[in-house]
């Protein structure tokens, strides 16, 4: 045994320790895909809101529901927006898992292993809690808070899951949570913050991750 072999052994140990605790196949391209579907969804939502506002004779700078009670088609508007949200979620999940699956296959790693389960579980807990919280807000007519709450809970979910995957995800979590809190004081601009958080931030993060880890062939 010479020095190089000992170094290799130490590197091996480090690699196994990291691989067994962190899910490293998360793909940056998946983040870009999720961001794009977020932006497309935001654009559709903006169009629908615009139509709604032009149809109803109410102040153009408020769409947080309370002002529209009695117009009758508020429920249709909410249904449309929820459908868009579902489509965005589906689009983001599809592109995210496709690129992650592709990266895992390229690295020859299993995609659904113990570390992936940890990531999904740690994402799911704050997300499911947030989801029901938001449904409760919609039920009670606090529409203006939906977008900030989405961002806050999503950010907390990312911070929670970042321990088991790319450490950089933690910063995305801080940004999303911060945006959500900021948006709470700017009610009525929810869609803007939503597009910024779910669209722009995802695209930036995905591009950086792709640049950092996937662009060059995996060396280390």
């Amino acid at each position, binding site marked *: *045994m010479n020095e190089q072999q000992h170094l290799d052994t*130490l590197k*091996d*140990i480090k690699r196994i320790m990291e691989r*067994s605790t962190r899910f490293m196949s998360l793909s940056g391209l998946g983040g870009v895909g999720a961001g794009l579907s977020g932006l497309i969804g935001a654009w559709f939502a903006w169009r629908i809101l615009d139509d709604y506002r032009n149809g109803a004779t109410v102040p153009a700078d408020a769409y947080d529901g309370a002002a529209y009670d009695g117009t009758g088609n508020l429920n249709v508007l909410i249904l449309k927006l929820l459908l868009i949200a579902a489509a965005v979620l589906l689009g983001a999940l599809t592109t995210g898992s496709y690129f992650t699956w592709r990266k895992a296959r390229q690295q020859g790693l299993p995609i659904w292993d*113990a570390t992936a389960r940890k990531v999904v579980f740690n994402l799911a807990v704050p997300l499911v809690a947030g989801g029901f919280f938001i449904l409760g807000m919609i039920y009670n007519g606090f529409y203006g808070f939906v977008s900030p709450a989405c961002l806050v809970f999503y950010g907390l979910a990312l911070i929670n899951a970042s321990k088991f995957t790319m450490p950089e995800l933690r910063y995305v979590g801080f940004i999303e949570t911060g945006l959500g809190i900021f948006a709470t004081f700017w009610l009525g601009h929810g869609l803007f913050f939503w597009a910024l958080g779910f669209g722009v931030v995802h695209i930036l993060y995905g591009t950086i991750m792709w640049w950092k880890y996937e662009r060059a062939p995996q060396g280390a």
Partner: protein
Amino acid sequence: MNPIEHLNKLFESRIRLGVMSVLMVNEEVSFNDLKAMLDVTDGNLASHLSTLEDNAYIKVHKGFVGRKTNTTYSITKAGEKAFKGHLAALEAMIKFTQ
């Protein structure tokens, strides 16, 4: 001083080294997860695991998930100490030869 006297013979096998590395950072790992992480066959992994168990470096927990057996492994205090000693010896070895 002989720099390799603290190297642990038991950790010369890459598979046993791998098992210890995984168990150092995970509280409890199932047989199947170990198998997938280290990319080894059932029989090979089982024999290395029993060697480690015989030396009291790891603990075996036999349980069930529904009707399927679910065996998990965790590291013992002695195992942790032995592995850390081995790592320190490796590092000392590298410094010694530099």
